[in-house]
């Protein structure tokens, strides 16, 4: 029995149909479309929530609070001997200048306990800011001029509205007296919110207001560079050999199955392997990008091999035949024709593999890349941390101000991932070839 057999012969309009079969068919199609559409909407809504949550928490990491105070660069404190040598300028007690500055600003504060509170209005890094200024320009010594100094992270949080003023004093990180001084300074127009370039150029720090992400970015760069240099050639060579040269037999089948299995192995297992192999056997330095890169290379290899093989397989046989028919050797046909034609696909797979590696944390925790590193790494053997581990470290820190740093770091990480995936898409679109 067919649908159409029972229908009135004349009408083709939908509303005239009453066959239950036809109605059911139409209903099921509608339901399916609605389900599909709602699945997409749910996914989009979740993504939007994620982005909103991260951006709303993280955007404030890109700005910071400064307090501008008239600083007297006292020669007696900085360079009593008047030598102006770098060593003397570096070792001077800039902290006492900060303290003098604050005390002149608030002469009514005298008790030792209150003074300690007053000094914490500025960041512990403020002394360092002065040191850098003086080293860069020794002529400042002896002068008095207004300098924008970084506020303490708690006051920064207060200024950004994360610490609420109506919470009872005992439950609040900022005491009433500190709030009072801050408000006085604010009333004088000394408090400003500025773009936090230190967040992008500095290394990690115990002081949230001083902490930056550049160390982690450089660490990630060296790690990914190692990963790429190790995994790309090995993966492409394996893919070429397996696709083009290896005989198809039980052994190559076994290898293929195992490569696919490796791609599905949890990344922490690779971390354990890296720990056993690169640290315990090879004695490479702990917490160094070279070890992280090697470990991530193990993890990325199967991904690139699979992508490269698929891409090599997509080159039609007619191209291979054409080359062979002209008297090219197998190797010439592969390196002159098949490999160049499959390169866009291989690059796409590589970038996707590397962006996976960029976001990977677990295996790096296993090999000790979770250390607190302040210095910007200068080479693959230097101790370093990477972006996702930096996120992990900051998320673990108790200070309120690290919450926004965490979200800020996630934004930077996501930015890099989006850029890498965009490059992959552009490569694919640009060089895609239809046969």
């Amino acid at each position, binding site marked *: 029995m067919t649908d159409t057999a029972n229908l009135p012969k004349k009408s083709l309009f939908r509303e005239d149909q009453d066959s239950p079969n036809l109605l059911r068919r139409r209903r099921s199609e509608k339901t399916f479309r609605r389900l599909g559409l709602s699945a997409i909407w749910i996914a989009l809504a979740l993504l939007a929530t994620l982005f909103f949550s991260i951006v709303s928490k993280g955007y404030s990491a890109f700005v910071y609070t400064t307090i501008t105070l008239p600083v007297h660069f006292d020669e007696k404190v900085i360079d009593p001997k008047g030598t102006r040598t770098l060593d003397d300028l570096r070792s001077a007690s800039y902290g006492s200048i900060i303290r003098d500055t604050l005390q002149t600003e608030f002469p009514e504060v005298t008790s030792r306990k209150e003074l300690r509170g007053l000094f914490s209005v500025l960041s512990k890094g403020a002394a360092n800011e002065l040191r850098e200024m003086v080293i860069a320009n020794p002529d400042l010594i002896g002068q008095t001029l207004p300098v924008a100094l970084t506020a303490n992270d708690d006051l920064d949080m207060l200024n950004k509205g994360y610490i609420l003023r109506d919470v009872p004093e005992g439950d609040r990180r900022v005491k009433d007296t500190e709030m009072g001084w801050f408000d006085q300074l604010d009333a004088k127009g000394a408090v400003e919110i500025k773009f936090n370039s230190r967040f992008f150029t500095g290394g990690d720090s115990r002081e949230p207001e001083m902490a930056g992400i550049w160390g982690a970015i450089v660490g990630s760069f060296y790690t990914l560079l190692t990963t790429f240099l190790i995994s790309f050639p090995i993966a492409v060579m394996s893919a070429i050999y397996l696709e083009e040269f290896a*005989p*198809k037999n039980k052994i190559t089948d076994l290898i293929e199955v195992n490569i696919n299995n490796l791609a599905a192995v949890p990344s922490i297992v690779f971390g354990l392997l890296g720990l056993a192999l690169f640290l315990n056997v090879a004695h490479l330095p702990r917490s160094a990008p070279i070890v992280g890169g090697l470990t991530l290379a193990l993890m990325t290899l199967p991904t690139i091999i699979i992508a490269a093989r698929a891409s090599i397989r997509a080159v*039609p046989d*007619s*191209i*291979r*035949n*054409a*080359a*062979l*028919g*002209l*008297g*090219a*050797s197998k190797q*010439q046909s592969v390196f*002159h*024709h098949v490999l160049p*034609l499959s390169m866009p696909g291989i690059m796409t797979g590589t970038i996707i593999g590397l962006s996976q590696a960029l976001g990977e944390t677990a295996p790096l925790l296993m090999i000790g890349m979770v250390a607190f590193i302040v210095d910007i790494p200068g080479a693959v053997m230097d101790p370093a941390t990477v972006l996702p581990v930096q996120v992990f470290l900051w998320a673990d820190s108790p200070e309120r101000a690290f919450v926004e740093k965490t979200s800020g770091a996630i934004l930077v990480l996501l930015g890099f991932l989006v850029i890498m995936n965009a490059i992959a898409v552009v490569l694919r679109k640009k060089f895609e*070839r239809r046969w």
Partner: protein
Amino acid sequence: MQMLADVEKPEVAETKATISARDVSVYYGDKKALNGVSLDILKNQITSLIGPSGCGKSTFLRCLNRMNDTVDGCRVEGTITLDGQDIYSPKVDEVLLRARVGMVFQKPNPFPKSIYDNVAYAPRIHGLARSKDDLDEIVLSSLEKAGLLAEVRDRLHSSGTGLSGGQQQRLCIARALAVQPEIILMDEPCSALDPIATAKVEELIEDLRNNYTIVIVTHSMQQAARISQKTAFFHMGEIVEVGDTEKLFTSPSDERTQGYITGRFG
């Protein structure tokens, strides 16, 4: 055997056989695709191989320059000699063989490169050109011989895949000619082309006959009749009948040949 008798007929005796296949059988895994085929390919002649689909004519053609080597599980028995040398001897370098026995495929398969680079590829890898001018010379003369030069002279550096189907196929022929082969194998070179392009390619093949030995597999009996001097009819992996094209098409001696050329099967 009848076909050997044909070969030794006095009117073809003066042209010597360049390729002789003797008792060639081909297996794909367990499947036997060719069963004891013997055939002589004569110099400066066009030999066409006809027969229904799956009869083994393309398989046989691909044996002649060892393109079957690239197929997994393919095994060739019997002997095929080129100018007296056994091409399946383990000492033979199949790359040198394929430089002497060129091939044009069913579907035009230019490299996704410029027209110039398509033709220049083989001379480059074989080191046939000593200078840039030499290479230009080879490319232009190959395109000229393939009758394509007039159409592409002003766009030699545009992509070869941008040409029409017929032009692509002639580009593939030019590319094969650039290696300066002795023998050109053609596997249904016109099956993907329209009648006008086919006519041009056929004309070209007839011209090439003066300098090259050509073996062509075709599904079109008219094409075989038009261009070839000798025709072999394959059926079920064997050669049923082989002989002068004119004789084979006018008075076939086997009734299967008769049936095929009159369109009763195949």
